[in-house]
Every structure is written in C-alpha cells, then in structure tokens.
C-alpha cells in the first residue's frame, strides 16, 4: 500500500522492538493504542486496540426518547457536532414523514457546512502541526473560534451544540448570527488562502506527505472507507450528491477528488471542500432572501417541542409538550436508515422503531470506526513518523470511534 519499500527481514537472529504507542500519546490526538513491532524506524506490523472511551451510546439510545438522543450525537463526532445533530433529526423526520420547509433546509445547510469547515480546519491544521508547522494551526484556529461564535449566536453552545429540534430549529437565526456568517465568509477565504500558501507548495510539507500512505480505490472500497478519505483515492462518492438530503440538490458545488489517496491528496481534498462549503453557504444565504422570513420549523405540533412560554400560557402547547415528553406520540413501527455526509465520511443512523417511547434499536454507522480499521494494515512498512501524520490525516475522532 505504501510507496516505501516494505522491509523484508532476512536475518533470523534479528529481533524487532515492540513499541506501545498510546493510548494517551500526545502525537495521536485522542485515545488510540497501537502496539507496533518496530525494526528501527520502520513498522513491521501493528495491532490497534480501541474502546478506551467506549460510552455505550447505542445502549443509552435504547433508553432515551427521540429528542433526548440529540445530545448523545453531539458527543460522537465533537468536531462537527451540528452535522450529527441534524443527521439524527433528519432520520427521525424521515421516520415520521415530516416535510421540512425550504428555509429550514437552507438554514440547516448553512450550519452543516460551517461545521464541515470547522472539522476540516482541525484535521488539516493538525496535519500541519505534525509535520512541524505550528503557524497554520494558530492562524486557522482563530477562525474556528469565529465558527463557534456563530453557533453560540444560534444555539448558545460552542462545541456540543445540541442544535435544532426534531422538526426544525428551536429559534430563528437572529441578525447578529447572519452578520457573523457574512463576516466569516468575507474573512475566512483570506485566511484559508494564506493557509494554503503556507503549506500546499511547501517543499518540506510535500516531502512529508506526498506519496506517503497511498491507498488504491479498490482497497478503500474493500475497507468501506467513505468521505474525504475515499474521495482522495479518486472515488467520487459523496452522500450529498448521491442521496441528497436537506435540499442539497438545489445547490451547485463540486466534489474535490484526489488521485493517489496519499496524505497530500487528503489534505488538498479537505481544503477544496472548505472552498466548496463556502460556496454552498453563499448560495444558501442568497436563496434565503427568497424564502418567507421567520419560518424556522415545520408545522408539526405533535412532534416539534413547543416554546416554553407557550407551554405555560397555551393549552394546546401544554398538551403537545406533555405528549412529546412523555412519549405518547404515535410513531410508525418500521425501520429507517438515513445517512449524511459527516465531517469524515458517511454518517449513518439505522433506527428500528417499535412505536414506543424510545427507539427499539439505534445503530450509528460511525465513519471513524470503519475508516480506522485500515490504519494498522496500512502502517506496515511505513516509517513511524509517517504513521503519525497518517493517523492525523485520517481524521479519526475518538468519541465517534469508540461509540
């Protein structure tokens, strides 16, 4: 898989060294353990151990009503939690057959693309950091803070956003939020261009990343890779295009793909996606002009939690609130699979509903978990320092990996 020559051990006397990397190694950015057999600087074989923050999401989900599962999804991929939140909401809406107004779809797209940008900022700056370039990290992290400020304006939280509700948003975006989004769209391209200038044509960076950890499309498909990693190998599979959700079909954007699937390709695909995300947000903002103002949720009182002041003053709202919270709502007894394009791949929700208060079974198709299993096999024959960059370029989020 790697372009580096694979070391063949000819000397029977020669012993390899066992190196325990992790679970709290500073270079791994998360709790991953890999027990590597090393021959000098080269990895002969490796075994990944995961589960160090296994939190039993799927078991908890069987004990929580639908609207209480949103905070769990936050904590899966905490680098792009709004995508997870929205993915879950859309799964339930698909189950209940709720049709969303276009304006809500566009607002969702704005939030989802912002979180895609923040996810890619983390991953790409960390690749820079691991190749020895700290400056881009400090530059771009400032803009991640700006994205967090937008989230704060929309929902009040920074990281674990719990954004939106089943059936829409809990409140409309205010003017400050829109002003901040516009400001971000104006300022971020400058910073991103500078970021690309610092790394993309940087000799050291190219030497460290290009032709390292190449993956063929066949391998990527066989290992069920998705998202940026799959696209970097040249397969143009993107859920946003293949199975458009939340009105992605109304938008005009490109899917960046790579050719070799090496770290450099992944980096460039992510950068390309950030540019495309900004295009999408701009289109969404202009589309919002034509939509009726003030629509921020679907008109489905039996599923959408009413605002608190109405619960206290309005009989119907109180009844619906009670019914939703106590799980007295009739839901179809069926199963549904819904997937969204998460920050690092196809994020799927497989929900089996028996009509009760809680899901009968909820399974998350977690892209980090599925993408990570190639790590140990592909590290074979790689230099240790390359394996470290390779891990950061896979964009594995421990919370999502371990469920």
């Amino acid at each position: 898989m790697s372009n580096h020559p694979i070391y063949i051990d000819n000397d029977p006397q020669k012993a390899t060294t066992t190196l325990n990397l992790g679970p709290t190694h500073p270079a791994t950015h998360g709790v991953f353990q890999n027990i590597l057999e090393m021959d000098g600087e080269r990895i002969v074989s490796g075994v990944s151990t995961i589960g160090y923050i296994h939190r039993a999401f799927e078991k908890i989900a069987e004990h929580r009503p639908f609207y209480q599962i949103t905070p769990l999804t936050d904590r899966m991929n905490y680098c792009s939690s709004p995508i997870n939140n929205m993915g879950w909401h859309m799964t339930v809406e698909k189950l209940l057959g709720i049709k969303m107004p276009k304006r809500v779809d566009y607002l969702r797209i704005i939030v989802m693309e912002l979180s895609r940008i923040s996810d890619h900022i983390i991953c790409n700056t960390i690749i820079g950091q691991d190749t020895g370039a700290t400056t881009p990290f400090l530059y771009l992290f400032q803009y991640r803070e700006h994205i967090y400020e937008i989230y704060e304006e929309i929902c009040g939280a920074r990281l674990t956003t719990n954004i939106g509700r089943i059936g829409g948003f809990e409140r409309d975006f205010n003017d400050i939020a829109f002003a901040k989004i516009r400001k971000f769209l104006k300022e971020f391209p400058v910073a991103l261009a500078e970021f690309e200038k610092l790394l993309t044509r940087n000799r050291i960076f190219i030497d460290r990343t290009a032709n390292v950890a190449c993956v063929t499309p066949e391998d990527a498909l066989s290992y069920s890779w998705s998202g940026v990693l799959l696209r970097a190998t040249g397969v143009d599979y993107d859920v946003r295009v293949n199975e458009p959700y939340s009105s992605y079909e109304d938008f005009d954007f490109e899917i960046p793909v790579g050719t070799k699937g090496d770290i450099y390709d992944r980096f460039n695909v992510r950068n390309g996606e950030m540019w495309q995300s900004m295009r999408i947000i701009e289109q969404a903002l202009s589309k919002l002009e034509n939509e009726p103002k003030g629509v921020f949720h679907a008109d489905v009182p039996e599923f959408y939690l009413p605002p608190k002041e109405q619960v206290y003053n309005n009989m119907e709202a109180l009844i619906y609130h009670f019914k939703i919270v106590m799980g007295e709502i009739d839901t179809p007894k069926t199963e549904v699979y819904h997937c969204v394009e998460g920050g690092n791949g196809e994020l799927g929700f497989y929900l089996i509903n028996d009509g009760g208060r809680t899901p009968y079974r909820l399974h998350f198709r977690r892209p980090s978990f599925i993408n990570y299993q190639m790590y140990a096999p592909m590290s074979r024959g790689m230099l240790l320092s390359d394996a470290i960059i390779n891990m950061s370029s896979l964009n594995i989020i421990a919370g999502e990996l371990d469920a």
Partner: protein
Amino acid sequence: MSEVNIVEAPPGIEGSGFFATSLDKVIGMARANSLWPLPFATSCCGIEFMATMGSHYDFARFGAERLSFSPRQADLLMVMGTIAKKMEPVLKQIYLQMAEPRWVLSVGACACSGGIFDTYSVLQGIDEIIPVDVYVPGCPPRPEAILDGVLKIQELVKNESGRRRNSPEYKQLLAKYGIQ
C-alpha cells in the same frame, strides 16, 4: 505592546536591601506560576482544551507554556473527558508516575461524575480512583471555565504548606485510594 505584569511578592517584611518571608510562600508562588500540566484529554473536553491552548484564549499566559506529556515531570494532571473503565488503569498509572507534589484538575462533567454517560462502561467520576483537587463543571466547560479551574489550582498551590505532603492526613487520603 501590552503591559507586562509581574507576580506580586508574597507578604513579608521589607527593608532596605532585604526582604523576608516564609519559604513556603516563596516556593508556593514559584510553583503556582510555573505549573507543568499533563493534558489527559480523551474526548470533547480535549477539543475545548485545544481552544484554551490556542491563540484566542492563550493558556500560556498563566505560566503553563510547556505542556508536559511525560507524567514524570508534570505537576498538574488535567483529566479532560470521559474515562471509560478500560481507561481506568491507565489513568491511575499515570497518576502514580507523577512525582509529588502533584495536583489533579478534573475538567468536565464526565471526569467529575460520569456526566450523561451513566452506563456500564464509564467510570462514574475519576475521584473513584484518584484524589481530585479542583472540579470544573460543564459539558464541555468553556475555555474560560478551564482557565478559571487552573487559577483555582494556582491558589491551592500558592497556599499549600510545605509539609502537607508529609502529613498523616494526606497519607490517609492516598491510602483511601490504595496509593502508597
């Protein structure tokens, strides 16, 4: 250029050419402003810690410029994120590897109490296995809250008596956790 602040000297007796104070206070002051934190970041709170370390919040202002990723040289163990039962022995070992004096900051609901993860696989608060000095609530706490927690630790460090770590109460505390 911003104004450079120098830490205020502890209270003491001052005269021309001399300044007298107790050794505890001087050592406390020096320690408090040169803590070497070991970030034990497992999940979401770790991402907020990255924001705390970043340029916007700049954790380094508080004398913690250098993160010590080796427990041997660290003074402050910052546990950020859920500690699963699989992780429990790892955390304990890291604590044992740290040299005295050592402090522990528990950041976030999961580290403090298990948070929303009241499940078979999650440790319900790290204080079940190691003593904790300061708890920072929040899920995740904002960077300001993490900074505040570190300042609280600094207060503790400043005012700690030099003999505390040899006292029978402290030994008893450690014995409660099965630490010799």
